[in-house]
């Protein structure tokens, strides 16, 4: 029996976009027992945080940005 190859419609390649990774900045906690997410942090703790979360802490004077 003769085999015939099936013709398939050529489909345009889909471009899969990766979700942008959040920009992390390094912050130093300024106030003892500052709540960050599900954790409590001591004064002097250094944490990498998403920029938005870091900005919120900085504006509340609970942390300062010390690097990226």
């Amino acid at each position: 029996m003769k085999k015939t190859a099936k013709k398939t419609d050529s489909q345009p390649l889909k471009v899969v976009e990766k979700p942008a990774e959040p920009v992390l900045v390094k912050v130093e906690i300024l106030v003892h027992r500052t709540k960050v997410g599900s954790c409590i942090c001591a004064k002097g703790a250094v944490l990498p945080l998403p920029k938005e979360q870091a900005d919120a802490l900085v504006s509340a004077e609970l942390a300062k940005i010390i690097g990226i």
Partner: protein
Amino acid sequence: MAAQYYLQKRIIGAFVDFIPHGETVDALTTSPTVIPDEDPEENWTDYNMGCAQDVQFESETEDDEDYCPALTGGYSKTITRTTVRDEIIVTLKDPSEPVFRLLFGLNQKLTGATGQQPFENLGDREITGWLRLRGIGAAGSTTETLANVKVEVKMRISDYPGWTKDATKPVVAFEVISNSFNDLIDDGVLAA
């Protein structure tokens, strides 16, 4: 004046959660300066060490003795006692990853995939982290949580019964480290 000591016969069950430093909780890495809170409760219960069959509290003290003369004659002895170390000793029903990590002297946690060199840790075989110890009375955790203790600790194997025909019940020692986050909530003692 009302009685001050809240006397009540109690059977106390212990619940032990241990979060080694370096674990990730809500995208943050735990450390001596970062401790998970209890919202959600799974922050701690995900690290439950299973049935704690027995919990003992041990303090190590050092004494300094002085003999001082009395004006009425003779000497009297006074002892100045200093507590230098506190340990919580827990007998567990189930061996767990941290127990095997210490037993085999590993430097890293077990991953289940990559091999590690056993008995490579020739220093103090310990895991530092946060311990939550809850003492629950017979009325249950809602009304009779007698103590909710959170302390930074060093976990070590205190006694390992070996591999035999019987179930292995490891005994671990948690040595308390001084930390400003160390905390005790004792409402249950006063309310029950």
